[in-house]
């Protein structure tokens, strides 16, 4: 029963990922504020963008289809989060075992 909730949540998450290509492309609250108030700053983001980030702007670089690219990037993010939690669980489990013994 408990596992069922986890699977249902993951199914909803996958559904959201499929919706993500249809998200609004308007600037978000902070970008809008920056534009409106004419804030200028030295953006260091572009430097990293093409060189280091794998899924910059929520896109997979080698997928040309924009929608598919966003979906693939979303899936990658979810897989990354699940892997990190698996590792976290393993570390906590190991630490607890050491504390008990």
């Amino acid at each position, binding site marked *: 029963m408990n596992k069922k909730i986890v699977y249902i949540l993951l199914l*909803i998450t996958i559904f959201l990922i499929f919706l993500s290509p249809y998200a609004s492309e308007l600037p978000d*609250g902070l970008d809008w504020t920056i534009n409106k108030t004419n804030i200028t700053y030295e953006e260091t983001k572009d430097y990293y963008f093409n060189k280091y980030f794998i899924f910059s702007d929520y896109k997979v670089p080698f997928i040309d289809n924009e929608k598919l690219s966003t979906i693939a990037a979303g899936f990658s*993010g979810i897989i990354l989060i699940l892997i990190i939690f698996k590792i976290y*669980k393993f570390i906590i489990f190991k630490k607890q075992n050491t504390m008990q013994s």
Partner: protein
Amino acid sequence: MHIPDGLLTNKINLINLAISSGLFYFFNKKALKNYDEFKINIAASLTAFVFAAQMLNFPIGFGASGHFLGTFFLMLMLGLELGFISICLILIVQALFFADGGIIALGSNIFNMAIMGGLIPYTIFKAIHKQFNIFSTKLGFLILTTIVSYISVVLAAFSCGLQIFLSHIASFKVILSTILFVHSFIAVGEAIIVFILLSLIFTFKPELLNPYVNNQKIINETNVLKPI
């Protein structure tokens, strides 16, 4: 509301990083003591859910959009320790792999979204919830969480605006009025989403909200609504 690198001064980023990492260490230690495998599994799937939900920007008018913050919602569902860790994890993944929010500004983003948008609203919620019995009913709980989730976005935006002002790149009045104006609309979206999510949880899995709601009252309310 993800702050990019270069917007804030390094001093502000450093102070925020120190506070954020200190809290992360503290909550991580606490989480270790209260290890619960089921809770970690739920945390993993809820974190993935919030990550996906944050990808869905919705238009709010004025040529701007907003997205679900979900930090108060995560703390509500997972508790303070795991909730905080989950939010940090989302922000770290977004900064490192998606270029959403700067790496140098990661501490500031954690401070704004996890502390100002999650920890403080959750503390406010807990204090009010403890003080007044009316918020232990289904309706009372839904009203309180909806209001607090609205406040969570406004608080995070206020903190973000304050940091931009302290970085000497905009005047206090201009930046705060603009950022609070746009986020007061985004906060409505946040409040609606949290209301819908919690209503769904009440319908399908009310035991997940056991720590906050008197279940006997839920049963009674359900019975009253049932047709004879």
